[in-house]
């Protein structure tokens, strides 16, 4: 699958991550959308709601991932109507995986599906460009993720509370935004638990780590 980006294709060179905590999960993303060296949108939203309690973090082609999340959103509402239940994160991830795997030659999409459901509680799945689906203790993605692998390995632990998880997500994201040229802007997080969802936004001049604070 060797594929060059189309001229002018809008990419979310990205940092995305999902960290579970006791009773839920926090998803987090930067806000940079670029076409080559040009920043097409510095305040984009890469966290998309698939159902009441399930979110998707998008990385790769903006067009592809938007189309994919639209489809999964539609299938999940259909599933809810058929069964009369809240969709499980597992089902959402499975639908996403099928779409990506079956169309992998035409797509450039790596996503994280995370959320809460009454069956399994909070869970995190990552779906790779090739279309494999993995359930993980926590997940990172996008070009910025390689810069924070070690940080999260060191600082992530099971059984964190909501505030700890959200703070770690923001910290990790700000570190990635600092080193990765394709990540930047603001930090968006969403906390998902049985109580519902809580969105939060950190402006670019108020990051936990960054040029202003350090250098």
């Amino acid at each position, binding site marked *: 699958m060797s594929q060059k980006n189309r001229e002018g294709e809008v990419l979310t060179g990205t940092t995305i991550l999902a960290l579970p905590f006791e009773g839920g999960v926090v998803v987090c993303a930067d806000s940079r959308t670029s076409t080559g060296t040009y920043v097409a949108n510095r305040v984009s939203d890469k966290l998309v709601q698939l159902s009441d309690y399930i979110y998707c973090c998008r990385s790769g082609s903006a067009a592809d991932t938007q189309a994919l999340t639209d489809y999964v959103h539609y299938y999940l509402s259909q599933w809810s109507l*058929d069964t009369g239940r809240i969709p499980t994160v597992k089902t959402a991830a*499975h*639908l996403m995986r099928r779409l990506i795997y079956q169309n992998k030659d035409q797509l450039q999409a790596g996503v994280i599906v995370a959320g809460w459901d009454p069956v399994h509680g909070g869970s995190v799945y990552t779906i790779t460009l090739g279309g494999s689906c993995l359930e993980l203790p926590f997940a990172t993605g996008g070009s910025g993720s390689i810069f924070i692998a070690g940080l999260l390995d060191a600082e992530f632990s099971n059984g964190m509370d909501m505030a700890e998880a959200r703070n770690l997500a923001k910290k990790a994201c700000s570190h990635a935004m600092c080193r990765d040229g394709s990540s930047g802007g603001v930090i968006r997080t969403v906390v998902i638990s049985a109580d519902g969802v809580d969105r939060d936004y950190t402006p670019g001049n108020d990051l936990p780590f960054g040029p202003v604070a350090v250098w």
Partner: protein
Amino acid sequence: MASSGSGYDLSASTFSPDGRIFQVEYATKAVENAGTVVGIKCSNGVVLGCAKPIHHKMVVATSGSYKRIHTCDTHIGVASTGFLPDSRVLVQRTTEEAADWLEQYGGKIPPHVLADRLGSYVHYFTLHGALRPFGAAAVIAGHDPDTKECSLHLLEPNGAPYRFYGVATGKGKQAAKTELEKLNLHKTPIAADEAVKQILRILHLLHQESKDSKPIEVEVSWICEASGWKHKGVPKDVLKTSEDWAKEQLEEEEEDDDDDEEMEEES
């Protein structure tokens, strides 16, 4: 023709003036001529049982041939009655629906969704002049791994999928329903091993009452903790003790009846 349907019974695509579809009613009749199926939703599972009349001495009625209870997914069991070939089509469709759902959504199909989908399939055969409705009914027993609940559904030739605490269909439907109602299942659900006994009692009772001299073979399956929440045949030893209990029970009941009669004569 003039006597029964007056010409309105030739196709499933025509209503009679009083709003009936005779072909579908005839299909239901086909079910009423076939072996009895009984299902019980228990406090800790769900049990299916069916009586298979051995219409010829030389028929091999073991699990290999003449099967009436099928496993359509690990968590789904279907007991069918009516035209055997029709019910096999139903069973195959059930298996396909369950497998398709798993492929699509990556999880087991909830039993009530399966019953609904099968209902739509069966109903389709009651809409077209070119199709014949199913001469078979299916009792679906299922366990839902997401909610950890068991359920019992009956699918009739008209395509209506109802959910039940206890259900019977086939030849002995009426008598079996009376017996099931005595168990008060909707208020006091019974345990799975108790349900096996009661189902066997009912099936043997029906066989005694019908003057049918043909022997019957009994098939019983369940979904419960003992079967690992999978649809499986009831183990031979459990079946044996339950069957002994059922026959003993029936003998006692018969003796009681005789005593009553004697008492009446005396007084």
